[in-house]
């Protein structure tokens, strides 16, 4: 019976046959182009980080180095909250732990990249994954849902936003008051706006939406109980597991 149902599922819903991932120069440009909507928001966010870093007493080279090595906006801003001058071993350890917690959502995002990047040689797959941020992952998911397989789009988006992120910390650091109130123009919401926008092309009917609704509600509940950023990870995992057990 179970076998029969399995065979039925196999014949009526063949698993999607995605093209093997590949690399191309036009793909790099395409990825950079798809970042366009996020460039102003990223610039303002990075400038705000630079200003805050200057206020916290970081040197210019430390400020830029942190952006260049981490490339993780939320984690860098949270790190500046924890930062002390001078740093003790205890603070350094908490900085690393806090960073891991804030960025825990990247663990799930990189898991979703397995079906696409899985066939690539490991160094290429892991190399491209080191450029992952929320925006480039969202761009990647949308591109993938359109049937695309060019890994360069993911890397191109990552490199473009990386350049903006590292560069824009400079004017923020040097000019200080460049971004006095990012809230006024809604720039504090730009990431969540992008999340919402990129959610729409993923819509494939109600069956998946059950898992998504569970994810959102669990995340909401967790956000009231558990401090920090765990709500994304716990909500998404729960919704995904519930969705996996709803038969097609």
């Amino acid at each position, binding site marked *: 019976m179970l076998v029969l149902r399995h065979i039925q599922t196999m014949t009526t819903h063949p*698993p999607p046959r995605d093209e093997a991932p590949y690399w191309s120069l036009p793909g790099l440009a395409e990825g950079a182009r*798809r970042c*366009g*909507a996020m460039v102003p*928001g990223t610039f303002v966010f990075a400038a705000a980080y630079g200003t805050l870093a200057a206020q916290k007493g970081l*040197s210019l080279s*430390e400020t830029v*180095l*942190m952006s260049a*090595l*981490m490339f993780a906006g939320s984690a860098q801003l949270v790190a500046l909250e924890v*930062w002390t001058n*001078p*740093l*003790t*071993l*205890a*603070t*350094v350890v908490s*900085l*690393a732990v806090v960073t*891991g917690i804030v*960025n825990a959502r*990247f*663990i*799930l*995002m*990189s*898991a979703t990249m397995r*079906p696409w990047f*899985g066939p690539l040689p490991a160094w290429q797959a892991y190399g491209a*994954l*080191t450029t*992952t941020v929320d925006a480039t992952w969202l761009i990647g*998911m949308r591109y993938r849902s359109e049937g695309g397989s060019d890994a360069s789009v993911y890397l191109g988006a990552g490199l473009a936003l990386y350049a903006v992120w590292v560069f824009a910390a400079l004017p923020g650091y040097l000019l200080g008051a460049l971004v006095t109130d990012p*809230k*006024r*123009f*809604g720039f504090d*919401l*730009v990431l*969540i706006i992008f999340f*919402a*926008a*990129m*959610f729409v*092309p993923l819509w494939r009917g109600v069956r998946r939406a059950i*898992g*998504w*609704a*569970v*994810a*959102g509600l669990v995340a909401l509940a967790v956000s009231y109980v558990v401090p920090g950023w765990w*709500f*994304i990870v716990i909500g*998404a995992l729960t*919704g*995904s597991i519930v*969705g996996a057990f709803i038969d*097609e």
Partner: protein
Amino acid sequence: MNDAMPHGALIAIVAMALATLLTRVSGFWLMGHIPMTPRVRRGLEILPGAIMASAIIPIIAKVGVVALIAVVVALLSMIVKRNEFIAVGLALAAASLARAYGL
């Protein structure tokens, strides 16, 4: 534990960078060691939207009505016209308007 560390800033930055790197690659690595059964595949297909929903809803609840307006405008704009430039632009405009009116 409580003495100032020599090169503390540099060590902290490298430690945070390594922690970040680990999050960027570990999920991908892990999924390479889990057999891709139909159930796992279904879970993985749902995961992207689940991550998005888990980020959006609690942040709306935390930030309030301005975030709700921005998200609804972005969603509607994408439903009408699949262009993220327009969606982000309209949503930012809606958020600044809402804040200008004291929401």
